[in-house]
């Protein structure tokens, strides 16, 4: 008998762990409704989100909401893979340009069908992007736009034109004892096309035409690339190599007098105690168009694989998350512009200098296209822009190649 057990025991030990995994889901009683949201919020935003959700759960003890965080690109790829496998979260929160591919891949539901009785006029018109006649995401903030941030201890009055900008940047520079630059006039992520757009629009250009065809090979693009490169090569007011993390750290440590960044970062700078203010990114010439950064929204989209029994709870949660109180809370704590009209009448918002300055920039911004072709355009712009910045291509060649690449990639994507 003992011999039999010495043979069976190891087999059990090998097989039991497999079974333990299977038994998990079956025996659960009908507990609270669990809602999962996948998001890409920056740390400060996420902190406020968690507080907002804690309030909601206190009012609705039968609902439990959990957040899973990804950074923007991973959010997109992870969600696509999960949704294709008939899984994924109940809601996905992110910038408006992700609805383009998501809607074509048929992994999100049209929001206007999910919320049939919704009063769409309570949102700012610019907050609702439509694609193929449907609204795909319920926004809680508008903006996501680049602003000019300047350190108020170093820069007294922000520039209004490109020439003034270079002047002020030059004056703000300091050199250390070893002869190396200690403080730069300006720092920004000049390897990402998102940061090129304000310069492009200041010279009157744009990324695509009304038929969603790229318009990258234009004199405006050449001028924009030339100016950005000049900032570094000719005027020497920006560091030789600069990426997002460097720009962020430089601003926090006082090594950059001005930077170009968006609302997702304001909370962080507030927390770090940087004395800063916002201004519009300057215009190229006095009387010319203001630089128009891309404005977008961030909102919630519903997964096609959503469990029908949860729909009621989700609708309620969505209304809560896009109510004027909640969006106003994000606004006052983090200087993020609400998507809901009523929030703007609240005193906390009207008197907030940072928010009003952000609103000023937003007013001259231009809406980011949410069509899937935008992704191909970003991907075409990026390497060419980097080639100009590392001196291996002229702006004219880069603009021409950008256009060609964008057309090729759009053709590839649409096969």
């Amino acid at each position: 008998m003992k011999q039999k057990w010495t043979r069976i025991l190891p087999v059990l030990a090998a097989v039991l762990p497999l079974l333990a995994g299977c038994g998990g889901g079956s025996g659960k009683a009908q507990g609270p409704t669990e809602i999962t949201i996948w998001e890409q919020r920056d740390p400060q935003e996420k902190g406020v989100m968690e507080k907002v959700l804690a309030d909601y759960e206190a009012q609705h003890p039968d609902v439990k909401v959990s957040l899973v965080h990804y950074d923007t690109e991973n959010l997109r790829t992870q969600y696509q893979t999960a949704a294709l496998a008939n899984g994924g979260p109940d809601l996905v929160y992110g910038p408006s340009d992700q609805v383009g591919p998501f809607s074509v891949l048929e992994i999100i539901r049209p929001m206007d069908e999910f919320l049939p009785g919704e009063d769409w006029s309570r949102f700012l018109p610019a907050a609702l992007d439509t694609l193929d006649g449907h609204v795909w995401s319920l926004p809680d903030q508008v903006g996501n736009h680049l602003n000019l941030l300047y350190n108020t201890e170093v820069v007294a009055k922000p520039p209004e034109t490109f020439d003034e900008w270079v002047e002020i940047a030059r004056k703000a520079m300091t050199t250390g004892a070893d002869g190396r630059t200690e403080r730069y006039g300006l720092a920004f992520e000049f390897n990402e096309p998102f940061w090129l757009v304000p310069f492009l629009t200041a010279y009157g250009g744009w990324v695509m035409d009304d038929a969603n065809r790229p318009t990258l090979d234009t004199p405006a693009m050449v001028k924009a690339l030339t100016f950005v490169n000049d900032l570094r090569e000719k005027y020497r007011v920006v560091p030789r190599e600069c990426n997002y993390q460097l720009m962020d750290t430089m601003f926090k440590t006082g090594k950059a007098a001005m930077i170009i960044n968006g609302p997702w970062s304001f909370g962080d700078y507030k927390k770090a105690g940087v004395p800063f203010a916002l201004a519009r990114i300057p215009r190229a010439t006095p009387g010319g168009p203001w630089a128009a950064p891309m404005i977008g929204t961030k909102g919630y989209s519903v997964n096609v694989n959503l469990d029908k029994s949860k729909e009621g709870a989700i609708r309620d949660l969505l209304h809560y998350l896009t109510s004027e109180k909640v969006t106003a809370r994000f606004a006052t704590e983090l200087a993020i512009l609400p998507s809901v009209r009523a929030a703007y009448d609240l005193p906390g918002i009207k008197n907030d200098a940072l928010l009003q300055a952000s609103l000023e920039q937003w007013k001259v911004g231009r809406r980011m296209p949410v069509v899937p072709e935008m992704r191909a355009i970003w991907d075409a712009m990026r390497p060419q822009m980097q080639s100009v910045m590392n001196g291996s291509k002229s702006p004219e060649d880069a603009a021409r190649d950008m256009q060609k690449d964008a057309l090729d990639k759009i053709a590839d994507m649409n096969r």
Partner: protein
Amino acid sequence: MNRRSVPLAYALVLPSILVMLAVVAYPFLYNFRIAFSNMSLRHFRNPEFIGLANFVELFSSSALYVVLLKTVIWTGVNVLAHVSLGVGLAVVLNRPIRGQWLYRALLIIPWAIPQYISALTWRGMFNYEYGAVNLWLMKFGLPQVAWLSNAHAAFAAAIITNIWLGFPFMMVIALGGLQSIPHELYEVASIDGANWWNRLRHVTLPLLKPVLVPAVVLGTIWTFNNLNVIWLVTDGGKPADKSHILVTYVYKAAFTLYRYGYAAAFSLVIFLILLVFVVFYMRLSRGTESVY
């Protein structure tokens, strides 16, 4: 092993087999299926069978050959450096020197730190203005290099990072192999008049072969397929998509441009390249023969 313990053996291995089927075999077969379809942005849910069209496109564009060349250079330089550094350090550390355990422990650290963290830290160190590498170069009066904004320099930066990350593995393997070489052989060789170079060439290296050959094969496959280091150090092929190797190029095609069918076909081709290499290398080096 008697007859009664054979079913037991199968039962014990069964969990691993199931996991391997689910995690290795199934995705491989699924990939095979996608490679012959047109799965992409417009054909996501219901891809159609399109035969060899993806492969035709793959072999007729210049992208494959340029990136393949880069990958071969990447793999060759890395594995050569790993083996030389690893075996060299192992030979040095095999002697009874003071603090031997300390040196061995310190030299394992690059391999022990998660790749993600090391790669990102190195990326910070290669920054032109504020990075540690350029600051050191300046101290020695050497010109500063635009590591991450110049295409060739970015590739070099990734190679340097990977060499730092990878040599401990070879060192550990070589140390293990060295310990199994009997001391008498070295004594006999010295008596016969061999100097350190002859001892290395005629005693150490041949006896290390059964241990080094599988290590080199593993190292080659891992380096060839190493997405992390290139992706993180160059931030996705920057500048201008010029520092891609095959796997990062495929990753971009699949997840940025939604070209799943094309990327799956590409992956299959990479697999075949590696398969051919492994088969040839094992035959050529007669690595699975015993030594004595």
